[in-house]
């Protein structure tokens, strides 16, 4: 007998003028794995945050097991058996696993026997689900996969009957994803209800029995998974037939312009993140780096763009060594040599959101003519240039004097892209080019990158979205644990092949 465990009726939520959830109706049945799919900005996370009590809905009713409840804070949700595993883990780095799990549920003011009992209870839970976690280990010592287990354990310990997971596989290798799915299936078999928020169609098809589709704040469809397929879901998600591949003409590849020899790079905590990496890029080619977040791509890109020191090995541009251990060519000098970089984290690195749009459009090039002469700005030239590129790249709204924080994610990304591409770089390094960007802008950005490549630039694209890598690259390399574990021409390569490499399974 299938009965609803969670019902949402006419849920509305606005943030200022942004209507994030519009009249959402949703019924989740007990003991099922229910998928909620939609692209970035569809409103899925907002909706689930309401269910978990982090936000309050502006209107609408929530029912658990048929009873209407008010969810004013996470405490209310937890009491009603709702648990959530967030995209960014809610863990205190320097606490132990045990401390993280009991936080807020200590059961006593002064630590004593309840702590002991909690430890025993948790050990039992771990055994039941085969979690294999050491309760006294510190979070900072754990891998991402294990941290996620801690999050799940936390929800279970607090008595969750409904477990919501928000984009759980973003940071996992395909193998870790399989393990997660095993855990979720066994939880379901035990009678728990799972809600899976994702934008990955393959997960929906693999795991769920029911799926709801959200688009632009609305619930646009609901179906049993067995009655649908990836193409139908994609169309519901986007509202039109999606072009999953961009047109890429064959282009003759030129010489090797950019070469990386035996590069080793450390991160801020002195841990080696890039291990003896060799790669080369020719003019007129896009080299894609596939890999799960955290396998060294970030540090590699930072080293290549002059932000991070090189531990050993060197980098060559047009045959000239531009970076090695004792010589650190900074971003400014690299720009002069024709190298441009579109960073992974645009808000943290690529832009100063408090600046006006035109100030960001010259960011990194501000000391060059024609923007400034002897360190004094030429306002007229700058505005002229700003107007030109904002039109060219369809940045909306196209006013150079507007504060950058007022632009959407996609338009901010376009500002960065227009800035870097305007210099006609010979080498372009790009990290996560379409993260947090809406689908219309994604196509635009991909096309621009292809255009650059057609004009003869050597482009490096690192992306955690396998689709994007397959779509853009002429050649693909896979990074795992700081090393290049595979290199393939982008002809008839499959997701599964790359997935195995991404998990460190070499041929």
């Amino acid at each position, binding site marked *: 007998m299938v009965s609803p465990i969670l019902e949402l009726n006419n849920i509305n939520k606005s*943030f*200022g003028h942004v209507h994030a959830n519009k009249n959402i109706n949703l019924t989740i049945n007990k003991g099922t794995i229910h998928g909620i799919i939609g692209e970035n900005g569809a409103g899925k996370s907002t909706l689930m945050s309401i269910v978990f009590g982090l936000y309050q809905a502006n209107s609408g009713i929530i029912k658990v097991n048929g009873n209407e409840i008010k969810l004013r804070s996470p405490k209310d949700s937890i009491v009603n058996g709702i648990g959530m595993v967030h995209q960014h883990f809610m863990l205190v780095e320097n606490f132990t696993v045990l401390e993280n799990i009991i936080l807020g549920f200590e059961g006593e003011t002064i630590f004593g026997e309840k702590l002991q009992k909690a430890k025993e209870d948790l050990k039992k839970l771990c055994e039941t689900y085969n979690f294999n976690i050491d309760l006294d280990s510190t979070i900072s010592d754990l891998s991402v996969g294990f941290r996620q287990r801690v999050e799940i354990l936390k929800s279970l310990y607090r008595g969750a009957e409904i477990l919501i997971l928000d984009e759980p596989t973003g940071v996992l290798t395909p193998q870790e994803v399989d393990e997660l799915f095993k855990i979720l299936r066994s939880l379901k078999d035990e009678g728990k209800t799972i809600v899976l928020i994702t934008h990955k169609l393959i997960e929906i098809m693999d795991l769920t029995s029911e799926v709801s589709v959200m688009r632009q704040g609305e619930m646009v469809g609901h179906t049993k998974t067995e009655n649908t397929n990836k193409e139908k879901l994609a169309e519901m998600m986007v509202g039109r037939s999606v072009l999953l591949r961009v047109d890429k003409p064959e282009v003759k590849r030129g010489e090797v312009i950019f070469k990386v020899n035996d590069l080793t790079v450390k991160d801020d905590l002195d841990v080696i993140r890039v291990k003896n990496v060799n790669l080369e890029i020719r003019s007129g080619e896009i080299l894609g780096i596939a890999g799960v977040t955290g396998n060294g791509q970030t540090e590699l890109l930072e080293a290549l763009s002059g932000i991070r020191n090189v531990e050993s090995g060197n980098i060559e541009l047009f045959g000239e060594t531009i970076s090695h251990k004792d010589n650190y060519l900074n*971003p400014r000098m690299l720009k002069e040599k024709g190298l441009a970089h579109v960073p992974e984290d645009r808000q*943290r690195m*690529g832009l100063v959101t408090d600046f006006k749009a035109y100030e960001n459009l010259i960011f*990194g090039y*501000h000391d060059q003519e024609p923007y*400034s002469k002897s360190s*004094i*700005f030429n306002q007229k030239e700058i505005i002229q240039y700003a107007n030109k590129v904002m039109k060219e790249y369809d940045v909306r709204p196209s006013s150079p004097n507007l504060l950058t924080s007022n632009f959407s994610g996609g338009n901010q990304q376009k500002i960065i892209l227009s800035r870097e591409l305007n210099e006609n770089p010979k080498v372009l390094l790009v990290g996560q080019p379409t993260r947090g960007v809406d689908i219309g802008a994604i196509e635009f950005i991909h096309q621009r990158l292809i255009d650059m490549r057609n004009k003869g630039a050597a482009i490096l694209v690192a992306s955690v979205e396998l689709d994007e890598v397959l779509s853009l690259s002429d050649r693909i390399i896979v990074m795992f644990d700081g090393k290049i574990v595979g290199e393939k021409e982008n002809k008839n390569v499959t997701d599964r092949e790359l997935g195995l490499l991404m998990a460190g399974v070499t041929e």
Partner: protein
Amino acid sequence: MSNIVVDKTKVPWWVSNVIVPLVNLSLALLVSGIFIFIAGENPIEAVKLIIFGSFGYIQGFAYTLYYTTNFIFTGLAFAVAFHCRLFNIGGEGQAYIGGLGVFLVAINLSFLPVPIVWLLATLGAILFGAAWAYIPAYLQSKRGSHVVITTIMFNFIASSLMIYLLVDVIRDTNQMAPHTVKLPEEIWLPSFEALSGVLGIKIRYSPLNLTFLLAIASLFFVWFLIWKTRWGYEMRAVGHNTQAAIYAGISPHKNIIIAMCISGGLAGLLGVNEILGVSHKIQAGFPAGYGFTGIAVALMGRNHPIGILPAAFLFGILYQGGSEVTFEMPNITRYMFVAVQGLIILFSGALENLFRPQIESFFVNRLNREVRS
């Protein structure tokens, strides 16, 4: 707590930058009035005295402008560092040491033509003030030592250092009190009194002097530096988003040092006013709290020269009018006005957004109504 959300793009600049600061100021003054009342005096009377003391007669007004001069320097000093997200609380110490620079140059080079002495003494002020800001800047950048604590410590150290020098090293040995000899009269900066005298107008003594013009010039200089040059741009980038600045090839270290040194140099210019223009010698404690007031001036003026000028002027009124109050009202001492400063920093700085949403949404709605009708 209200949950008003305002579309920021629709708020006119004069609402955010004039109306809201005025409301914050009024709140501070309101609470100040309460304090004056608690101290046993009539706040309304106090206000009347302040207005009379600062505007009511020419000499009073001249004093007001003299104070304004100092506040412009220290306000600009705090503001410049703030654009790089650095809280330079060391204006007092930097002004003190800047004064030392002025004096040392002037007394030793007094044989040179007068305008050259002025120029070199001013440079001395800037260099010495900048030098006193350099170590805290370096420690913040390289060691992460919080610049608030280090600059406050350097204020204390400057005080000890200057007392030592004034007592043991450069004292005017003919006098008991710790101060230096007077500079030769030729190199004194012409005072307002003297200049008016040249025009045939007789005015009573006031400390207002030519340095006032230097202060006005500094306002332009800072505006130009911060918004029209690459150095100001880089400072602001580092201040808003250090990570992004590194990405763009901007050096945080270099800009932290530059911002703090310019800041220290501006504070040092206070020495030009006090030593070349007013007392013509170094007296112990001459920074007299101007450095701290500069913080309030900068925050009230939203760290922009256009705001700092009226804010400095307002504080000039408070100081000059305030001394009239302390003269007439036995229960109020100058420390009451230190408290007023604290309130202004509180309402213009920490609580600046207390009523911002209500004010901004009020104006946005009112303007929309007008447009529609």
